[in-house]
């Protein structure tokens, strides 16, 4: 099929898929950020079991293939009498894996904070949570905008896991299989999705650079 044939026949489905991918990316990234921050707080907490748990968490989810995690969530959990809907499974997988990377980015962002600032906060009588909330996390986040931008692009690509389960509405990778099982979309069907992924990635990249310039900490 030619580009124009594909677009006339499946154009609105592609748009819907693009929107689904955006939605998944947005919520996954937000979830990854929240979980990543929490895990990072664990990893620097004064309580050793929490630190160990945090490190363990990151090692697990940084090293598990997305497809394997999704298979576990979809096919293994029901044996434990835990059954999530397909879209929840995809969302959980695309939150857990990026959250591990998010934590790593925050840890390296933390290294940009001079130890003296931590001492100053302590000397002013701040407790661990005040220190984390006011000094450590804000500075780590603001120093990690560019790696977080990369992470958001990676999260977007990870949402293609959604093509492996019957997701409705479909996302950008799923739509290609859908089209190719019905008509001979061929490479062109892939190319359209690829272009849409690429465009989204560029948008995220531009937004990230803008945000980085805006919140970068003067030193």
């Amino acid at each position, binding site marked *: 099929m030619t580009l124009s044939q594909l677009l006339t026949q499946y154009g609105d489905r592609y748009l819907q898929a693009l929107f689904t991918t955006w939605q998944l990316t947005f919520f996954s990234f937000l979830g990854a950020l929240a979980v990543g921050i929490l895990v990072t707080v664990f990893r620097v907490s004064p309580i050793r079991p929490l630190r160990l748990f945090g490190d363990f968490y990151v090692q697990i989810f940084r090293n598990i293939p997305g497809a394997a995690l999704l298979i576990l969530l979809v096919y293994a959990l029901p044996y434990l009498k835990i059954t999530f809907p397909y879209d929840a499974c995809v969302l959980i997988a695309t939150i857990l894996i990026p959250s591990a990377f998010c934590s790593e980015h925050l840890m390296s962002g933390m290294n940009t*904070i*001079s130890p*003296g*600032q931590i*001492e*100053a*906060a*302590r*000397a*002013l*009588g*701040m*407790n661990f949570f*005040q220190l984390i909330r*006011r*000094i450590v996390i*804000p*500075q780590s986040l*603001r120093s990690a905008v560019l790696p977080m931008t990369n992470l958001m692009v990676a999260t977007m690509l990870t949402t293609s896991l959604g093509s492996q389960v019957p997701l409705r509405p479909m996302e950008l990778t799923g739509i290609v299989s859908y089209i190719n099982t019905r008509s001979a979309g061929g490479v062109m069907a892939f190319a359209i999705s690829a272009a849409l992924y690429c465009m989204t990635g560029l948008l995220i990249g531009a937004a990230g650079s803008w945000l980085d310039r805006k919140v970068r*900490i*003067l*030193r």
Partner: protein
Amino acid sequence: MTENNQPVIELRQVNKHFGDLHVLQDISLTVKKGEVVVIIGPSGSGKSTLCRAINRLETIDSGEILFEGEPLPREGKELAQMRAKIGMVFQSFNLFAHRTILDNITLAPCDVMKASKKNARQEAMRLLERVGVADQAGKVPAQLSGGQQQRAAIARALAMHPKAMLFDEPTSALDPEMIGEVLNVMTELAQDGMTMLVVTHEMNFARRVADRVIFMDGGRIVEENTPEAFFSNPKTQRAKGFLSSVRMQDREL
């Protein structure tokens, strides 16, 4: 008044090691209310460690540190509360890089003392006025000179209404022309009756402002005297040597 003789900071037989280095050796020291004690000595003599141990930024191996008669808590909420009463000024200012000067000063009063935002801001502006950097309130630390940053850092410590102030080499990271502005603020603070422990290399400041000078070397308090007596007539050989080398440098300048 008897109140003026109350010890605010008290160290009893304090010892600390960094590995093999015995950095604090049987340190006993009392700073009374309203007193200004200046600690001088060559680098590596343990004077910074001593200063930092007083609000437990350094732990100690043995001995006792008391603040207002109470032993320093080891950790947790009690330690934080105690630290809030002790102002600390660092060599490298240590302002919070991501917040404005005004926020730097209001952060701890709002979070730790639960002051209202409005009151904290008013108080902060008053303090910034006092140290002469009120016009920089909206900038972030990196936009200020070292002297301005250090004066803001003093204001930040004062915003907690501390019972005593610790100064850990407050002018050592400053360009010469900025040292004076920071020392002036410290002198005014001393004149207002603040209890102060100052680790410094500024001999003129020690001579003018200190009630007592403590000379440390090799982890020990070697000499302790009034500034007049110490500077005009040091008793120990080590103090004599230190002072003459400092004076030599001054002459070379």
